[in-house]
């Protein structure tokens, strides 16, 4: 995904990120060698805060690469993008540092979207490919205004009902380095392609840590998946079957009770015009969920019950 990764790193660079200095953060790029590695000259041209490691990987999971990346990190706060094909909007880093000032162990999550009209594993049926995506990206002139990505995107499978419903996972999540250590980094037993359920597992583990009192969502920011033939994001007839084994692995870790993290999110950040439709949709879906929970006399955010901070768990 050399081209997609360069887009992603551009969006993370100080050229694209606002209200932040290059010296405030570092971008660690870890690549498992393939026949299409990133052009390092183009990579380093994106900023002076980029460190790159190309490594040999015999397996098909990114787990070991993640751990290599975590080891390279020098900052007390670490963001993980498990999939290099995800572009981000311009104030992700600014708001993350804001959340870090609120609490050094805050968990910050950026909602996921897919570029294009629908989920990427439906690409063939939609006749959607890298060329059509490139045309869309050109149309919105995203380098001038990264929020225009919302204009050509649809909501991700990880958070299909918006920001007020539990996420299954997050492909751009940020928390303290200590929290990453607390969960033991990336568990390399997740050996399936793409890590299988690894990202879901790490997300939930970070979210239920007792030290993670503050759970932030950035409602006006996003991480946007570019089409690149990823493991679970390409249309194939055996997709369901292929996902079965990773799912059972994940369930085995959680005694068959794995589910999305049900914590009340603290919103942080402005919401620009292009992102309003998703905020409106989120609010609509939230009302439905709350009504259903009310009827069933269930707590809205059961994962919060183990934390000390008061949250809205009243009926």
């Amino acid at each position: 995904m050399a081209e997609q990764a360069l887009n992603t790193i551009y969006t993370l660079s100080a050229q694209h990120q606002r209200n932040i200095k290059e010296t405030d953060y570092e971008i660690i790029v870890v690549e498992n060698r393939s026949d299409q590695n990133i052009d390092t000259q183009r990579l380093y041209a994106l900023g002076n805060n980029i460190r790159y490691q190309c490594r040999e990987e015999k397996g098909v999971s990114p787990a070991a690469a993640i751990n290599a990346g975590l080891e390279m990190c020098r900052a007390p706060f670490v963001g993980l993008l498990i999939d290099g094909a995800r572009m981000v909007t311009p104030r992700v880093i600014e708001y993350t540092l804001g959340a870090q000032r609120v609490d050094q162990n805050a968990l910050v999550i950026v909602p996921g979207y897919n570029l294009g009209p629908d989920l990427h594993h439906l690409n063939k049926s939609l006749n959607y490919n890298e060329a059509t995506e490139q045309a869309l990206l050109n149309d919105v002139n995203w380098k001038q205004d990264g929020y225009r990505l919302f204009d050509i995107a649809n909501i991700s499978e990880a958070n299909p009902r918006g920001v007020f419903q539990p996420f299954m996972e997050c492909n751009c999540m940020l928390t303290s380095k200590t929290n990453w250590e607390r969960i033991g980094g990336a568990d390399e037993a997740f050996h399936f392609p793409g890590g299988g359920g690894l990202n879901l597992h790490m997300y939930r583990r970070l979210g239920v840590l007792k030290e993670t009192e503050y759970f932030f969502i950035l409602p006006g920011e996003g991480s946007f998946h570019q089409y690149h033939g990823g493991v679970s994001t390409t249309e194939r007839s055996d997709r369901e079957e292929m996902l079965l084994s990773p799912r059972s692995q994940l369930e085995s870790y959680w005694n068959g009770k794995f589910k999305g993290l049900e914590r009340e999110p603290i919103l942080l950040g402005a919401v620009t015009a292009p992102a309003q439709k998703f905020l409106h949709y989120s609010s609509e879906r939230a009302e439905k969920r709350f009504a259903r929970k009310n009827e069933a006399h269930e707590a809205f955010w059961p994962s919060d019950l183990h934390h000390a901070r008061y949250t809205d768990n009243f009926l």
Partner: protein
Amino acid sequence: MTPVMPKLSVIVIVYNMREQAMNTLHSLSPAYQKNIAADDYEVIVVENRSAHNLNETDIKKTLPNARYFLRDEQGVSPVHAINFAFQQCRAPMIGLMIDGARMLTPRVLEYVLMAKRIDENALVAVPGYNLGPVEHQLAAEHDYNETIEKQQLNNIEWQQNGYRLFDISSLGGANPTGVINPLLESNCVFASKTSFEKIGWADTAFTYPGGGSLNLHMFRSLGMLRETNHYFILPGEGSFHQLHGGVTTQDARQQSKQDREQMLKQFARQINKRWGVFSVLKREPILLGAVTTHAQRFLKSSSKEATIRFSRLDENMTAHWIDDLTRLKSDRQESA
């Protein structure tokens, strides 16, 4: 026992509204405000003497971290009471509630302290709502009165869950199109003590009843300060106006429509004189805080209204948040 050095001082100005003010003070109490300790903040209650003053013992029972001052005021504006209150504040961050009849939701103070951790000069605005179905100057026309309000407050048991206040309320006149459109003012506004000092505290020229446009003037002044880099709105919190005989919100039966219009014209003239033409603060708000089930309908309508406004501005090729650009421009000029 008051705290040695609170992080936050909250000013509540009271005049002739005993019952409503006690509700407000309860909503500021450590028992009601969540995720914050009594020692973290102080509440400065300044009352201009009337026939219905508060009882200091009752206040202390509700709010152990309150300091109460009863003063005599010959004028009709709260401006001197506000400046007196500023002098009492010991914390580096100050909240101003110009009207003691406004109850709050339970995490206002927690989120203000969060905003302060992000930026010590943050400006934090809490959106305003009216208890009941309409703006309070229209209450009589809609057969809404203090008895009904009291009944509704009892029904929702607001002391148990303050977010239920949203269930019996309507959007306030200062933010009629919600929280993502420009606010005219905020009746529960927080900024650093330094910022209040920079705007010259409360301008004593605002001598009209209720201060006239004083609160609007202060809100815009704070928002346009060079130091105010972060402007937060709390989308899931609110300040809820209770029906009482307030200057701009009193019952139409007590004030003719003509008198009210006349009074508002006077207010407008004064503020326009100050600003050339006064305009609401058009800065992009940073949302902060959770949004409970009770507040979702307001967030949903806010988002819808924001989209309508953005489309209109796009059609006219107008910036969405012109005051952000104005500030940036003057910043650059000053730097140059």
